[in-house]
């Protein structure tokens, strides 16, 4: 910057600049925040705002051109068209099922790594669980495509029992999404179980509670906020997904797919549909805020 100036004078300028910054915290703050806030508000929030406004526009059905006239037709269609209602309910159902499955699978694993395994093995086990789970999203979906394809691993395991694998469809979608979002559930539950004071468990046992009772009355209430925290991710990530559904879902349609298929033909409708997961997620966040889960996110 100051290569043209003599070193001494250059240093003087730097010193003056530093002094100015030091005595003016507001200026420092402004310099820190300007670029990132411009990026996030103008580029990102600006784009989002335009998208949500466009949900109130319509499309000329002959030319597919967007007509910029304010109307609530899209939202009206959303609530009155049976297909849309079905898709919304199915998507919420899938998200809830994935969340429940994640919780059921995560709990024994987290309980084992946090409390049952020998202490010196615990950190190793956590790495062993979580590292592979951060593998590429697409590869994990692909893995399930291999398992569930005709004559794949699922069929091979189930055929001797006289059964066959679920194939591609709703079940496959739920299984794959569960696998994808499992780490988001294991991690908070493991942390909560690890921090559970052993003295509380001893006290419960001293008072005569068996393991089952201790679990219900001591462990579960204390782990519930972190289960809820994990569920934010499993729920919202499932609700917006459409790639997994395209790969293993067969003919299944979820919100994401319907948004995707409307983008070219009817952007305002796609935008209106896109507000549905956003609203559902905000409602979900408000509902679980009571558990104190959000502060442990």
């Amino acid at each position: 910057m100051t290569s043209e100036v003599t070193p001494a004078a250059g240093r003087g300028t730097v010193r003056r600049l530093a002094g100015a910054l030091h005595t003016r915290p507001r200026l420092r703050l402004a310099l820190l925040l300007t670029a990132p806030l411009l990026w996030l508000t103008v580029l990102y929030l600006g784009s989002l705002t335009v998208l949500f406004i466009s949900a109130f526009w319509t499309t000329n059905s002959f030319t597919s051109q967007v007509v910029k006239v304010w109307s609530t037709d899209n939202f009206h269609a959303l609530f009155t068209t049976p297909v849309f209602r079905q898709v919304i309910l199915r998507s919420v159902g899938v998200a809830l099922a994935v969340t429940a499955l994640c919780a059921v699978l995560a709990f024994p694993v987290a309980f084992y790594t946090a409390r049952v395994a020998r202490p010196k093995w615990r950190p190793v086990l956590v790495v062993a669980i979580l590292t592979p789970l951060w593998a590429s999203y697409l590869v994990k979906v692909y893995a399930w495509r291999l398992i569930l394809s005709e004559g794949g691993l699922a069929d091979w395991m189930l055929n001797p029992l006289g059964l066959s694998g679920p194939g591609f469809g709703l079940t496959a979608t739920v299984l794959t999404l569960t696998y994808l979002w499992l780490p988001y559930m294991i991690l908070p539950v493991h942390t909560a179980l690890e921090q559970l004071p052993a003295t509380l468990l001893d006290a419960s046992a001293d008072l005569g509670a068996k393991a089952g009772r201790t679990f219900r009355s001591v462990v579960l209430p204390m782990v519930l906020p972190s289960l809820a925290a994990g569920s934010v991710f499993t729920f919202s990530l499932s609700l917006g997904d459409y790639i997994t559904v395209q790969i293993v879902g067969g003919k299944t349609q979820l919100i994401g797919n319907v948004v995707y298929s409307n983008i070219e033909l009817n952007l305002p409708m796609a935008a209106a549909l896109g507000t549905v997961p956003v609203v559902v997620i905000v409602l979900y966040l408000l509902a679980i805020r009571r558990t104190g889960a959000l502060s442990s996110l």
Partner: protein
Amino acid sequence: MHLSRTARIALRAGAALGFAVIYVPLLLVLLNSFNPDRSASWPPPGLTLRWWSAAMDNSGARDALWVSVKAGLGATTIALVLGTLIAFAVARHRFFGRGTVSFVVVLPIALPGIVTGIALNSAFGTVLAPLGVGLGLFTVIVGHATFCIVVVFNNVVARLRRTAASYEEAAMDLGATTFRAFADVTFPLVRSALLAGALLAFALSFDEIVVTTFTAGPGIETLPIWIFDNMTRPQQAPVVNVVAAVLVLLSVVPIYVAQRLSADTATSSRV
């Protein structure tokens, strides 16, 4: 907690099942890349290295890998600068709307990717297209940077909260300028958090498919897009198997290194 023998065995079995669920799919992908057969039927009839050499020669996959690396480096650079700036503002200053700023940083990743994707797509279309800038690698980098900011921010802000500002004040009491104090005191303290954040941001960008779909111009194909396009083509199946296997091995490296770099790393690749 005094568990009965039965409960202990049940928990061991449950945990073992959990481990199996975690590992079997990924091992299957690795094994399947050596499958001589084009179909994914189980068990594979034998093992071969043929597809690995075929994949090396596949120019589509190689080009896509190169595009992914360029997009990842670009997005990481932008996210590193912007994420660090916000982290310093939030951790070292008190100001009106501080909570809102932290919230806005998380938003691009908290909302469904398809919402972020179409929002950016229509914004680029209406603002950039009249300026003669079409969708391309540049718009992919801009899109990725937007949701990568949060991982850099999370890592740096966690580190800054654990290091008191008094170190910098002490340096300045000893006569260091603001810049000098930053270079000699603050930067070394946050260096590993920056590196961890950068690695996670790169991993996040490298793995992203939804936002890429909506921000990439024609001819810009990242590796996830390439895999997605070729996954259902029987002709390409063996090469997809190999690329997937390579990704299993590669994608965990940055996460592992980032975990080692800083104990307070936001471990999740998304949040």
